[in-house]
């Protein structure tokens, strides 16, 4: 099972005669002023050769989209460089095209005209432009939709026009930023299948593809290599070849083995590391309410002691991306833990899931007090006059380590946990936290 994935070493693939297209060398990116700068990407290195379909995987906050923009030449790196065919990239890469999550098509132009517009900078005569645009629409199966306006097209068809527009300029490398994630599940299925038909059937002039996605299953379904990024900041924590034959069967053991292995890799580094220098060293999983944690533990009842995160997410109708903060919160409260791509319900978690509301509060109270932010709020309130403090007081502390928005989310989350365990409460009128 594990044989399907090999950790990539430079020598894994025979390199003779295969040109290297993209080389990312020591690329870092930070935002903000030097004194308070936020590191988004940290020392990224990889290269992409002809014939490769590489998936760039990572959760929110891994800087994967920023990295894609750097490869395209839309955003300069703060340090390091990107080479294309051995030459340092200067501005936008003329040999690359990019497909975004959803395309801004011109609403007053037809599908055909939208594709023709992409060809305008090439300076072709109008007849030549039309012929090329028609040919590319034909190739992606949009023959018959030439005179349709974007509003007449469903999301999937619009995205096909987006692909056609990117392909029209005959790029050597196609970059894609979550190209299927704005689509409904069936349209996404159709478009993935058709993209693979064009790619594997070598019907495209394209020599390599790089796709950003947060969807591990999608990456394993399509790509022949996955580069995995950590978050806050983004660092390369895995670089695998995915050596499964096409078409890939999502129900096969080998497929699930690869998916599982990547989940394990990503969840291993899920522990919040957002602001290590912050006074409050361990932030709460953003915006996770106790109700969601309770829902997770209830979902585990009647199952084996452990459950695959991917299956659990599907049963909870969530993306794994959304589930991870909830499992992190459960872990923080001693209700369960994530191990090797599975969520394991601990005895306390089982007791919690089976208990009534009052008992749940009792069970969780001592655990909540062990959470640094909750503990801190509780002790501050205990020593305060009237056992009340304005929320601004806590927000001020939190702002030292978090953005304005995240500071508020942290406080809201702490209030939810404090309220549930009846450790403290919040008065909406006076905007104060208090102990009754």
């Amino acid at each position, binding site marked *: 099972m594990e044989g399907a994935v090999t950790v990539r070493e430079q020598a894994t693939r025979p390199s003779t005669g295969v040109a290297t297209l993209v080389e990312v060398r020591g690329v870092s990116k930070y935002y903000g002023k030097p004194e308070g700068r936020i590191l988004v990407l940290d020392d990224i290195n990889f290269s992409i050769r002809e014939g490769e379909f590489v998936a760039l995987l990572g959760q929110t906050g891994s800087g994967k989209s920023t990295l894609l923009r750097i490869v395209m030449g839309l955003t300069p790196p703060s340090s390091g460089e990107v080479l294309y065919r051995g030459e340092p990239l200067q501005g936008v890469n003329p040999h690359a095209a990019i497909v975004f999550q959803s395309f801004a098509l011109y609403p007053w132009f037809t599908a055909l005209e939208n594709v023709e517009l992409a060809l305008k900078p090439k300076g072709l005569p109008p007849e030549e432009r039309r012929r090329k645009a028609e040919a590319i629409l034909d*190739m*992606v*199966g949009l*023959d*018959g*939709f030439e*005179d*349709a*306006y974007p509003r*007449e097209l*469903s999301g*999937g*068809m619009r995205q096909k026009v987006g692909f056609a527009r990117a392909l029209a300029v005959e790029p050597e490398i196609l970059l894609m930023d979550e190209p299927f994630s704005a689509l*409904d*599940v*069936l*349209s*996404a*299925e*159709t*478009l993935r*299948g*058709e993209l693979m*038909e*064009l790619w594997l*059937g070598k019907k495209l002039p394209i020599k390599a593809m790089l796709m950003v996605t947060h969807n591990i299953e999608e990456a394993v379904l399509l790509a022949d290599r996955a580069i995995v990024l950590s978050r806050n900041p983004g660092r390369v924590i895995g670089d695998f070849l995915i050596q499964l034959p096409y078409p890939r*069967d*999502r*129900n096969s053991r080998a497929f699930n083995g690869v998916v599982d292995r990547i989940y394990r890799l990503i969840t291993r580094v899920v522990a919040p590391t957002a602001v290590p220098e912050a006074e409050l060293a361990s932030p709460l999983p953003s915006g996770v309410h106790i109700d969601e944690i309770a829902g997770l533990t209830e979902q585990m009842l009647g199952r084996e002691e452990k459950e695959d995160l991917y299956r659990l997410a*599907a049963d909870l*109708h969530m993306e794994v991306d959304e589930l991870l903060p909830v499992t992190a919160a459960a872990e923080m409260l001693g209700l369960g833990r994530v191990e090797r791509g599975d969520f394991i319900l601990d005895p306390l978690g089982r007791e919690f899931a089976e208990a009534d509301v009052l008992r749940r509060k009792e069970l969780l109270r001592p655990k909540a007090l062990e959470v640094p932010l909750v503990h801190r709020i509780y002790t501050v309130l205990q020593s305060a006059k009237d056992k009340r403090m304005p929320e601004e007081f806590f927000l001020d502390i939190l702002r030292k380590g978090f953005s304005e928005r995240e500071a508020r989310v942290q406080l809201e989350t702490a209030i939810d946990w404090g309220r549930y365990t009846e450790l403290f409460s919040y008065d909406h009128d006076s905007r104060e936290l208090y102990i009754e």
Partner: protein
Amino acid sequence: MASIIDADVPLPNARVEHIIGLLEVLDEETAQGQVDIFRLGQRLLLSIDDLLPILEGARLLRFVDVRDGDVNLTDVGREMARADILERKQIFRKQAVQVALVREVMGLLARQPDHTMSRDRLLEWLETSLSELWAARTFDILVDWGRYAEILGYNARTHELHLTVASSESKVTNEV
């Protein structure tokens, strides 16, 4: 093959790409035989309300058989799931012209001067057997299927629908 489907039935809200996506999923899920529709909805994270019109569309086009809450691909459904982009359009066309309503509209257009008809007139015609809402929805799906199958063209600037198939194929529909 005689059509068993009444032309008075509106076309379900099933876009081509949704039907194809469904067939691809079914090709994978029915490897061991038919699947339960409720299960399929769960697997796709689709509510039954969203899934049923798409299934109904696939059934009208004879890509799937639905029986007792289970669904399976027909031979042509499986062929469609595995065909390439251009073959799919041909298969879809063969199936679409067997749908009673599609045939009737093709026949209607074939009798018009220039094989062209305004949206309003076609809606009027549809409204003789469908409610206003369903007539409008059916029109949208008709255009979606018709464009994909390259049977119909619709110009949203002039609001005109026209027949785009070769005359030999439109003749077949005239016999309806």
